[in-house]
């Protein structure tokens, strides 16, 4: 009974380990995100915020709210750049 489940359990542990090692916390290369009312909204494009260490910000409409940009759906992955506010309108 014990040996019957050993290999499937090992396969499962191997798969779980692989999931953790391939987890990409660096960011979504396809697009950036903003946090709107506690929900991550995709911007539909990868913004070029330039080089720098200042948090990248975006404005979606004239005189509209300015949002901080995130590299992925992760509140700890703020996109950094030269500090210019990107205007998407």
């Amino acid at each position, binding site marked *: 009974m014990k040996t019957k489940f050993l290999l499937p359990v090992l396969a*499962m542990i191997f*798969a779980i380990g692989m999931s953790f090692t391939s987890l990409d916390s660096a960011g979504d290369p396809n697009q950036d995100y903003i946090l709107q009312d506690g929900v991550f909204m995709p911007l539909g494009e990868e913004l070029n915020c330039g080089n720098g260490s200042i948090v990248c910000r975006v404005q979606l409409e004239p005189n509209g709210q300015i949002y901080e940009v995130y590299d992925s759906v*992760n509140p700890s992955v703020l996109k950094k750049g030269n500090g210019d506010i990107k205007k998407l309108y």
Partner: protein
Amino acid sequence: MMALKFRTTEKNLMVEIISYLFIVLFVYAAVSKLLDFEQFRVQVGQSPLINTLGDYVAWGVPVVEISISLLFFFSKLRLIGLWASFFLMSIFSAYIILVLNFADAIPCSCGGVIASLSWKEHLVFNIGWLLLALLGIFLSHKTKEPKNIDTRPFLIQKMK
């Protein structure tokens, strides 16, 4: 008779290996989706084909994947697991074909390294696993032991 037994053992081994491969595939895909769940949910929401199903798909897919992988733990349920894998991979492949034909700008709602594949590569990947499931189903049917038939009365009759 010995040669037949040897072939049956090989087939059983192949079915076992296929089962373990599916455990790895489905657990890896499910856990990868759950570890980055918010991103997966956003990606599902971006698909015009399944966005109306929203959270049902976001939660349902990993749950189904893990459930199918658990079937492979039990030898009696392996065939059911193989059929379930075949149908799930068919559904995924059908979705990719629809995406390729109607919307190629949707990011892949996949888990782990599978997300780095292009849509066409992903389709080939899925078809490969679909064929593997079919192979497992075929071998499972072939390895069924013949029912023991007591031929002694027949033999005694012949001897008379």
